[in-house]
C-alpha cells in the first residue's frame, strides 16, 4: 500500500477546497455538501465513505463537473475547473472520467459495446477508423471482455460485464483522475470481488488517481490508500486506510467500522460494538454544533453548540479528525 507523499510536488490529481453544494427545494435548502476539502494525489486511491444521503455522490458529481458547486473550488491536475462553462470544459474532460454505480443505467441501451467504449475517443478525436477499432479491442481485452462482446448491446451482458464496459469507457482516454461512484454496489456479491480486483489491477498498472466513493467498507479497505469519512455533508475523519481501520478516532468512524461483520464467530461474539441510535438528521436542517452529536455516544454539551473543525493530529501519519472529544494527542473518547 503506497501512501501519498506528504508534500506533493506535482499537482494533485484532484483537489477540492471548501466545496459546498446546496440545493434549493421547496421549504428550504438541502445542504448536501457543506465545506468539503480533500486531495487525491496522482496515482492514489482515496476512498470516500459515508451513509446514503451523506453527500458523497454529490462530491463526485462536482469533482467531474457534472454538477456545479455552490461554493469552493475544484482543481483537476492543477487546473481550476470550478467555474468553466460546459463548452470550455469539453477539451479538458480527457483528463478525468467517472464510473457510475448502476452499469445498466450508464450504458446507452441502443448502442453496441464497441460504440460505447469508442465514444470518448471519438469525441476527443483521439483515434478513428481502424486505429479506433484497435484501441477498442485493446480496451475490452484490458477489462477482461472477449472481442465478441464488441458487437453486443448492454442488455445482452451481465451486470459485471456491463461494469467492465463502463470501466473501459472511462479509461479509454487515459484519464489522470477517475471518480468511481459506488462502482460495485449494484453488482452481485460474487461479481463484486472480480470487478474490484480488476479495478485494483488497472489502477496499479495505469496509475490514475481515483476518488472511490462507496458505503462498502470492505471494498474500500481493499482498494483505497487513504479514506475520508463523510457525515451529513462534511468530512469527519481522514486517514490512511490501515490506520483508520486499526484505530478509528471519530466516534462515527468507530461506529461504521464496528458495523462490519467479522468472519470469525468467536471474535464476532466477543467484540464490542458501537451501535448508533436513530437515522441521520435531514440535510435540510442539520443540527447545530457537531452534526453528529444527536447520535453520538460520546457527545457532551460543547458538541451541541460548537461545530468542530477538521484538525490535523500529531503523529507520523497524516490524519485529520473533526471531533471535540478527540484529545490533542489524538486519543479517541471511550465509547
Amino acid at each position, binding site marked *: 500500500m503506497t501512501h501519498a507523499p506528504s508534500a506533493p510536488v506535482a499537482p494533485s490529481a484532484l483537489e477540492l477546497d471548501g466545496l459546498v453544494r446546496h440545493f434549493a427545494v421547496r421549504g428550504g435548502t438541502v445542504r448536501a455538501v457543506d465545506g468539503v476539502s480533500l486531495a487525491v494525489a496522482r496515482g492514489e486511491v482515496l476512498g470516500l465513505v459515508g451513509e446514503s444521503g451523506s453527500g458523497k455522490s454529490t462530491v463526485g458529481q462536482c469533482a467531474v463537473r457534472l454538477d456545479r458547486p455552490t461554493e469552493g473550488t475544484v482543481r483537476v491536475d492543477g487546473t481550476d475547473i470550478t467555474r468553466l462553462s460546459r*463548452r470550455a470544459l469539453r477539451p479538458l474532460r480527457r483528463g478525468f*472520467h467517472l464510473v457510475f454505480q448502476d452499469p445498466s*443505467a450508464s*450504458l446507452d441501451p441502443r448502442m453496441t459495446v464497441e460504440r460505447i467504449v469508442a*465514444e470518448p475517443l471519438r469525441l476527443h478525436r483521439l483515434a478513428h477508423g481502424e486505429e479506433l477499432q484497435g484501441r477498442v479491442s485493446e480496451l475490452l481485452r484490458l477489462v477482461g471482455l472477449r472481442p465478441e462482446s464488441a458487437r453486443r448491446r448492454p*442488455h445482452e451482458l451481465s451486470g459485471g460485464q456491463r461494469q467492465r464496459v463502463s470501466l473501459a469507457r472511462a479509461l479509454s482516454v487515459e484519464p489522470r483522475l477517475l471518480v468511481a461512484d459506488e462502482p460495485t454496489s449494484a453488482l452481485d456479491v460474487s461479481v463484486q470481488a472480480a470487478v474490484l480486483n480488476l479495478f485494483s489491477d488497472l489502477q496499479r498498472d495505469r496509475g490514475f488517481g481515483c476518488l472511490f466513493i462507496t458505503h462498502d467498507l470492505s471494498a474500500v479497505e481493499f482498494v483505497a490508500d487513504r479514506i475520508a469519512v463523510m457525515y451529513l455533508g462534511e468530512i469527519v475523519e481522514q486517514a490512511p486506510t490501515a490506520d483508520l481501520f486499526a484505530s478509528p478516532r471519530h466516534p462515527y468512524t468507530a461506529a461504521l467500522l464496528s458495523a462490519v461483520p467479522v468472519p470469525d464467530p468467536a471474535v464476532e461474539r466477543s467484540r464490542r460494538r458501537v451501535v448508533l441510535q436513530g437515522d441521520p438528521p435531514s440535510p435540510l436542517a442539520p443540527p447545530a454544533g457537531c452534526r453528529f452529536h444527536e447520535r453520538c455516544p460520546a457527545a457532551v454539551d460543547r458538541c451541541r453548540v460548537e461545530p468542530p473543525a477538521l484538525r490535523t493530529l500529531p503523529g507520523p501519519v497524516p490524519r485529520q479528525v473533526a471531533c471535540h472529544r478527540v484529545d490533542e494527542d489524538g486519543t479517541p473518547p471511550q465509547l
Partner: protein
Amino acid sequence: MNTQLAAGRDTPLWRRLAGNGPVLAGGTVAVVFVLAAAAAPLLAPYDPARADFQAALQGPGWSHWLGTDDLGRDQLSRVIHGARASMQVGVLAVVLAFLVGVPLGLVAGYYERFTDSVVSRVTDTLLAFPFLVLAVGLAAVLGPSLLNATIAIGVSLVPQVVRVARAETLRLKHLDYVQAALASGGGPGTVLFRHVLPNATSALLVQATVGIPAAIISEALLSFLGLGVQPPDPSLGVMLSGAQPYIAAAPWMAVFPGIAIVAATLAFNLLGDGVRDVLDPKGPKRGGR
C-alpha cells in the same frame, strides 16, 4: 414472471408488434388504406371527376359498387381517390409537424431556462386552442387549398410533438448514460442526436401514429368546410359536404365516405395504441401471455 418479462424484452420488435391484436387489426386496415391511396389511379374503376348525368344518384349496384352522386360520379372511385388525399395530408402534415416540433422540443428540453420558457409558453398557448379549431383558423387565414390545409394541420400538430420531444429530453438527459456522454466530452449535438433522439423514438413513433388519424379527420373537416381539397377533386370531406342535401334521398353518398373516414381513423388509432402498449414496458399488457 421476471423471466417472462426478460424474454419479452429480447423478442424482436416486429414480432412483439405482430403478436399484438390492435396492432395487427389496425395495421392491416391502415396498410389497405395506404396501398389504395398509392395505387388509386390503377384501382379506381372510373375517373373520379367525370360526371355522367344519366347515372346520377344511383344506389349501390353492379356497375357502381358504392353508387353514384348527384352528378353521376362513381362513388367508389371518389372514395379511393379521397383516401389518397387523406393519406397525403395525414402523412405530410405529420412529417411537417415532426420536422418543426422535434428540434424545438429537443432544444427546449436540453437548454431549459430561457429557451424552454419561450418554446413552452408558445406551445401552451397553441395547446389552449382545441386542435380542430386551430387547424380551421389557420386554414382560413392561409386560404383554401390542399397544400394550405396540410400546412395548417401540420402546424396544429406541432405543439403536441414539441411536448413529447421536450418531455423525453427532460427525462433522458438526467439518465446516467447521457451524463456519461457529457463526461466523455460530448456536447449538445452528441447528447441530443446520438443519445436522446434514438432513445425517444418509441415515444415519437406513438405520437406519429396518433397524429395521422387526427390529420385525416381534420382534412375531412377542412374539406367539408371548403377550406381543403377544392371540388371537383375528390376528398372524403368534400364528398360528405356534397352529400348533405341528399342525405335522405341518397344516403349512400354520405355513408360510404363516412365509413372510410371512421375506418381509417380507427385503424390508425388502434395501431397507435397497440404500438404504445408494445413499446412501453409499464403500459397495460393486453392479450394472453
